[in-house]
């Protein structure tokens, strides 16, 4: 007879405090005892998505500076973490992003303009979550994580093989909701990978004020989950680790936390004042570890894209694509969308209740008069 004090839960393997790294900052491969970098095709895709992401970040930041976006939280410097995570998803998988993850959305296939709807202030979510298997960008910190757990639970009940990637920041891991989501995922053995983008700052609050944990990946231990600590500026490593964690999760081995060590090179948003809380030298240190630079170095050194000429051509192609994305965003942002005031009332409930019908009428009448 088994009794309540006989536990059979294994202690999950401890994450190493050395981040998994497959490509160093000079673009040299680093061998790892377990993980291997994805193949050339994938490496090229990762780079392409990062180039587009970087350009997109720059364009959106410019629009914010010009007042054409209400706000923009740039992820410059974090492209590898976002792109590496998202490209590891399979077709049927879902993404649960935060406000920081526009580059992830674009890599996931969401129309760049639609990722900006929220920040432009036209509406809260600009895309159809079902079409893109992608939840709305989430602002209340860590609250998207339990949604991911519930969604995969539902998918499993409906017999569908769906995993999910839930993204959160280092700061968000301090919230109770992160804990509850991790715990539900582990108990339900949900196929969710929690990608923690540790960009070292939560607005102005440094990581040391956020946690005393050896690494954020170590948080996994307390849930009986696997935790991975990875160089978040190494797209190959992020991809390899997230793909592995997703495959394991899908196979029934349960959820995982992947901590991607990266850095928010830009201010928190365009209205932030980082000079108040961090030093330029710190930023420089991280710029020196830029995810795009190192990937380009790798692609060139190894001739991943072909000979030098071909490489130049393909890289120029990426740049051109990125430029096209930026131009499209700029152009489509130039006009003003027609926003129908009556639409304020349409999707509060499944139908429009009497109270809202009255308010709508009053509003519409008032606008007609004016």
């Amino acid at each position, binding site marked *: 007879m088994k009794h309540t004090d006989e536990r059979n839960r294994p202690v999950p393997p401890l994450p190493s405090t050395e981040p998994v790294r497959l490509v160093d900052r000079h673009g040299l491969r680093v061998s790892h005892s377990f993980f291997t970098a994805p193949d050339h095709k994938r490496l090229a895709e990762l780079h392409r998505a990062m180039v587009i992401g970087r350009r997109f970040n720059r364009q959106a930041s410019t629009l914010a500076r010009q007042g054409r976006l209400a706000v923009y939280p740039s992820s410059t410097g974090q492209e590898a973490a976002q792109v590496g995570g998202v490209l590891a998803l399979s077709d049927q998988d879902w993404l649960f992003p935060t406000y920081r993850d526009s580059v992830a959305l674009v890599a996931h296939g969401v129309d760049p303009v639609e990722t900006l709807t929220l920040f432009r202030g036209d*509406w*809260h*979510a600009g895309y*159809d*979550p*079902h079409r893109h298997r992608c*939840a*709305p960008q989430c602002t*209340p910190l860590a*609250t998207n*994580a*339990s*949604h*991911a*757990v*519930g*969604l*995969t*639970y*539902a*998918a499993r*009940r*409906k017999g569908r093989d*769906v995993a999910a990637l839930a993204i959160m920041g280092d700061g968000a891991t301090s919230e*109770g*909701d992160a*804990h*509850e*989501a991790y*715990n*539900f995922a582990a*108990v339900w053995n949900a196929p969710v990978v929690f990608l923690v983008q540790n960009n070292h700052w939560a607005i102005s609050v440094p990581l040391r004020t956020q946690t005393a944990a050896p690494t954020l990946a170590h948080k996994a231990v307390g849930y009986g989950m696997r935790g991975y600590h990875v160089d978040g500026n190494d797209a190959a490593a992020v991809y390899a680790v997230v793909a592995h964690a997703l495959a394991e999760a899908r196979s029934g081995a349960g959820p995982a936390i992947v901590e991607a060590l990266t850095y928010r090179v830009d201010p928190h948003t365009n209205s932030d004042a980082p000079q108040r809380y961090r030093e330029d030298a710190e930023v420089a240190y991280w710029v020196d570890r830029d995810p795009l630079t190192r990937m380009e170095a790798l692609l060139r050194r190894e001739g991943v894209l072909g000979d030098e000429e071909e490489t130049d051509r393909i890289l120029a192609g990426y740049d051109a694509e990125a430029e096209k994305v930026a131009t499209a965003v700029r152009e489509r942002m130039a006009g003003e969308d027609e926003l129908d005031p009556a*639409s304020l009332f*349409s*999707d*509060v*409930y*499944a139908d429009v*209740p*009497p*109270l*809202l019908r009255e308010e709508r009428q009053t509003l519409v009448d008032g606008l007609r008069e004016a």
Partner: protein
Amino acid sequence: MTRTPPTPPASSTTEITMGAALNQALRDAVAEDPDVVVYGEDVGPLGGVFRVTDGLSREFGADRVFDSPLAESGIIGTAIGMAMYGLRPVVEMQFDAFAYPAFEQLVSHLAKMRNRTRGTVAVPVVVRVPYGGGIGGVEHHSDSSEAYYTHTPGLRVVTPGTPADAYSMLREAIACDDPVVFLEPKRRYWSREAVELPVRTEPMARSVVRRPGDDVTLVAYGPMVETALEAAAAAAEEGRSVEVVDLRQLAPWDDSVVTASVRRTGRAVVVHEASVFGGYGAEVAARVSERCFHHLEAPVLRVGGLDVPYPPPKLEHLHLPGVDRILAAVDRLQWEAGWTSASDAPEVGA
């Protein structure tokens, strides 16, 4: 969106308690729709601390009815995720004060998901919340939290006052494509009514007149419906004809039944257990005062809990509105001429 044909009705001609009616509603909903799942703290083998989910996990398996980790925000959060993928989760918050940890998920996500996504993502989650006092519960077990939810656009907030409504409204809530905060008047779990299940009462969005009357309108909901009816019966003996309206759906509120009643009677008292200040009764009183202004013979009064934290069991009878306090308020409705503004008396604890 109830996609499978109904199972043969579990018929019952005897009296049934509200708890049993809720139980049967859950049973029928789970049986009829494979997308309905029921979970929360202790809703599995124990059948919930009030036994509302009694027998369900045995009957339908832990696949459909199950216990979850003890974390209310996680419960609402996972339910949102499930609903995003087509399930219809029915979750329980064990007592209403224990829904507070989930407040952010309720207000910032559950209430807003449809709106944020322009209607593309519906989240048909039912959040069952045993609410109110009167059961001798120690602190944190007797809150009336409806005002927090009814002020949150996007949430449908309903509360049954009778066993038949408990059945019908819970079925309707589960079938509804909106998130529903389903407030169960816990002290009325043991109230009985002769009703044959399944029963389909008026749509939950409509308030109903529970007892017709001509002199004054008593507006009540949830646990206070029974009390209001008792008060009306007592008033009748004194020759006063009291109409009792049971609100049922508190938000979004269709005020037509109440305003029609008050325009006829000219007088109104709103009753609830929650503290009066900033309570749901304020909305009813404000709206009725505005919309029935020229029909009012007297100010709309409110009878509710004291404006103090819910008292300990031995003092809760002083907090909760009873027949006496309702009748006292009715008596203050300026039935005689000669009322002057100087007599303005506080409306609480009357």
